[in-house]
């Protein structure tokens, strides 16, 4: 019962975007030898999920999303070394994410990367203006489950299709789920690219990836 109220306190610290409190809770959990898997899932995880709900309800906006995501990310960095033995249990999956070649828009992609990381994914953010080949090579090297490709411009979104064509050509399309992001992306485009899905915002992206990983 005591533990349940501690988890709740953590979650509340995340939702009220209190970085110092969140980090001190992470340290306290380690010092007191708590079950860290539960702390992550029921405390920090619950907090970041609530932030997602508040975004959907129109209560939270980009600054809150980014701040909440960063606080959970920082807390996880403190907790992860102590979770090493159980790392496979806390990692929801590996994601390689980038904005495609020719496109320098980073905000959407960075927020998705932050939220995924806060939700327990191991995220490799390659930045902006990244070639399809480099994204694929990193995904192979890291043994990723998911490739996320962002494009804000209708002229660069063609690169999302190119990436999947390369995967098909190399015969490794089945190794990864490929998801698309960016303002101009629609379900029609996903179908045409033979991608696995797209999301309108970071919260949807987390949901989509969780669904694809099931």
């Amino acid at each position, binding site marked *: 019962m005591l533990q349940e109220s501690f988890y709740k306190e953590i979650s509340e610290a995340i939702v009220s975007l209190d970085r110092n409190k969140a980090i001190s809770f992470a340290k306290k959990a380690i010092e007191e030898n708590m079950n860290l898997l539960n702390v992550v899932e029921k405390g920090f995880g619950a907090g970041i999920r609530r932030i997602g709900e508040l975004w*959907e*309800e*129109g*209560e*939270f*906006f*980009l*600054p*809150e999303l*980014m*701040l909440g995501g*960063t606080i959970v990310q920082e807390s996880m960095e403190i907790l992860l070394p102590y979770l090493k033995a159980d790392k496979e249990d806390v990692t929801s999956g590996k994601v390689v994410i980038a904005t495609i*070649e*020719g*496109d*320098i*828009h980073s*905000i959407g992609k960075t*927020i998705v990367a932050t939220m995924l990381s806060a939700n327990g994914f191991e995220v490799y953010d390659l930045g902006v*203006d990244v070639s399809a080949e480099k994204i694929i090579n990193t995904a192979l090297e890291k043994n990723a489950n998911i490739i996320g490709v962002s494009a804000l*411009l*209708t*002229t*660069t*979104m*063609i*690169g999302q299709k190119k990436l999947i064509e390369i995967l098909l050509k190399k015969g490794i399309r089945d190794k990864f789920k490929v998801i698309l992001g960016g303002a*101009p992306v*629609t379900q*029609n*485009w996903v179908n*045409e690219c033979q991608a696995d899905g797209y999301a309108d915002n970071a919260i949807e992206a987390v949901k989509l990836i969780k669904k694809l990983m099931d």
Partner: protein
Amino acid sequence: MFKEWLKDDSKIILFDGGMGTEIFKRGIKPGKLPDILNLEQSEIVTEIHKAYYDAGSDMCQTNTFGSSYMNLQKYKLENRIKEINERAIENLKEVCPPNHLIVGDIGPSGEYKPPIGKATYEQWYSSYLKQIKYLEPGIDLWHIETISDIEEMVAAIQAVKEVSKKPIISSMTYKKTKRGFFTIMGNSLKDCIEKVENENVDVVGGNCTLGSKEMIELIKEMKNITNNPLSIKPNAGKPRLNQGGITHYDQSEQDFAKDILQIVKSGAKIVGGCCGTSPKTIKEIKTVLDDLV
């Protein structure tokens, strides 16, 4: 002339439609800033401006959406800020008919304040100031548009006022949430309107992000908040790429123009289009507006 138009109750001012999407249709290379065409392929830019005036636009805006100092830096073009902005005016002047206006277009810096980015008020202000001084001599009024942070908008307005006495249209971009219209940074419609009114802008507006149907709702809410003249430039639905990689927008021009009529009836003084709209859209709006009179 613009201020007379604003005072004339029978006048609805027809703005232009999308520039970026029209440029992309003509096959610009991915990753290129559309504004660089002012120098490299000015005939394309001029052709698009002309098509808008021919379609019935009372005023068209310079191809300078991305030509603020901070945005040009991202493309390593900041050293060319003077020529890009000055040529933008020349390209528009060449085809602007008598009794029509030239609008100086100011778009977002592309940089956000913390916790998302690192931008500060001072950076925004000085970035806009650098662009504005090159546009000021050749334009009739300003359109500060597609801004999603009210602080950035205020910085842009104050930079304009530093060097210019010309009228300002201040147009934020909103998304629709369960609690009403907000910017992605969380500024409410009411907050945005009050803050830009404090800066004494001439016209309050909304553009981009929302389509024409949602803009009908937006204008009604705006009308409840302010008595200032209102400007609306909606997007034409969502873009789609066909097999050849050419962009299409699903919404028909007729459908868009029908919504614009509703937007005018709900109180807009200035109407036009944003992403995905074309001279065809403006022509359709012109027809609808002529019937109204």
